[in-house]
C-alpha cells in the first residue's frame, strides 16, 4: 500500500470513527435503576415457566431414565 493511499485511508478511518461515535452518543438512555427493575420484573414474571429454575416433576421429565419394572 503506497503511503498516499495509507494517508487517505487514515483520514477515512478517522472520519468513520467520528461518525460512529456521533451515532453512539446520540442514543437515548435510561437510568440503571429503571433498567434493573425491568430485568427483575421479566425474571419474576417468567420464573414459573423456567424448568431449570423450578425443576420439573419426574413424570414430565423426558430425560429421566425409565426404570425396569419388576413383576412380583
Amino acid at each position: 500500500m503506497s503511503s498516499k493511499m495509507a494517508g487517505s485511508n487514515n483520514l477515512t478511518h478517522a472520519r468513520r470513527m467520528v461518525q460512529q461515535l456521533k451515532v453512539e452518543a446520540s442514543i437515548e438512555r435510561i437510568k440503571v435503576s429503571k433498567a434493573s427493575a425491568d430485568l427483575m420484573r421479566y425474571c419474576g414474571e417468567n420464573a414459573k415457566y423456567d424448568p431449570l429454575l423450578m425443576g420439573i416433576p419426574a413424570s414430565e421429565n423426558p430425560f429421566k431414565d425409565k426404570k425396569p419394572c419388576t413383576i412380583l
Partner: protein
Amino acid sequence: VQPQPDAKMCDQTFLAITFGPCDNCSQNKPLMNIYLKNEPINYCSLCVEMMACQGLAKGETIHTLKAESESLKSKLEEERAKLHDVELHQVAEKMEALGQFVMKTRRTLKGHGNKVLCMDWCRDKRRIVSSSQDGKVIVWDAYTTNKEHAVTMPCTWVMACAYAPSGCAVACGSDEEKSIQYVVLLYVFVILTSSGDGTCALWDVESGQLLQSFHGHSADVLSLDLAPSETGNTFVSGGCDKKANVWDMRSGQNVQSFETHESDINSVKYYPSGDAFASGSDDATCRLYDLRADREVAIYSKESIIFGASSVDFSLSGRLLFAGHNDYTINVWDVLKGTRVAILFGHENRVSTVRVSPDGTAFCSGSWDNTLRMKVKGLAVVIGVLHHPVVSAPRAAGELRNIGHSFPVIYS
C-alpha cells in the same frame, strides 16, 4: 463450504459465498455487485463504505478528527455515568434467593472422534446437531442418544453448526480458510456469519449474494446472537478486540458498542427479553450489558475462577446464566444478584459450548473431551464417561443459534 451428505439430510446444499478479488483493493473478500458510473464492478463491502466517506470537508485534518473522536468518547462516558444511579445487585437484594441448585447429567452423547466445538438444539426440543474437530456434523436424538444423521465435511475444524428453523436443514461453518467462524440461521435462506477477518455478513444463501456487511471490530469476531424476534432486527457480536457491538441488520450500522472486558470475548447471548445481553470472555468473567441503560450492569466473577469462559446461555426466565469454562466446569450464576449458585462438573476437558433447550427443560454442553452432556434439574446420575486422548489445539470458537423469524431480503 459444501457438505457431502452421508445420509439424506437436507433438500439442497448451499454454496454460501461470493468471493474474489475486490476491484478496488484487490484483496480476496466477499464481494458486492454495484454500479459505478453505469459500469458493473465488484467491490468488497469495506471499499463500498470508504467510497461514501471520500472528500475532505473544510478545515478537516487527521488531527481535528482525532480530537473530535476523543471529545465524543468523553461525552459518551459522561452521559452513561449520569444514569448510573444504582447497581443491579443492589436493586435485586429484595428478590428471594434461589434454593440449592442440583443438576445431574442425564445423557452423554458419545460418538465424535475429536473435540466437540459447537452444538445447537432443534425446535422440536429433542434433536441436537453437533460439530467437531473430527470433521463430522452429527444429528442426535437427545432422548434416546441415537445418532440420526452424520455428515462428513471436507475439512477438520467444523467451528459452527446450526439448525434451520424448519428442522430440515443444518448450516455448518469451518475455520479452514479463516472465512466463517460463526453462523446463525435467520431463516433457511438467509445466513448471518462472523469471521476471522473482523466482519459480520448477511447472505442470501440461495444466490450466494452478500446482502449486508458489518464493520467495526478490529479483530476476529468469535460470536453472534440475534435479538429475540419481538425486539426487532438487531444482533450482537463479540470478538478478539474485547468489544461487544450491537448492529442494525438492515442498515449495517453499529448502534452500540461496549468495551469493558479485559480479553477476547468468546460468547455473547441475549437476555430473553432482548433488553440486555451477556458475554463470556478469556478474562474469566461474564458480564451483563443493558441495552437501554447503554452500559455494563453486572459482572460475574470470582477470584477462584481464572480460566476463560467459552460459552454462555440463559435459562428461559433469564434468572440463571450458564457459563462453560476452559477449566472443564460450568458455572451457574444468579443473573440479578450476581452470585454463583452452582458449579457443574463432569467434562474432562474444556467446555466449548453450552446451550439451553428451546423449552428450557434441559441444557446441553459440548466439550473438548469429545462428548456432549445434558443436564436437567433434579437428581444426578452420570451415565457414561468417554476417554479420548487430548490433543492441544487452538481455542474453539463459534457458536450457532437458530431463530425462527423470517427476514425480508434487502438488497443494497
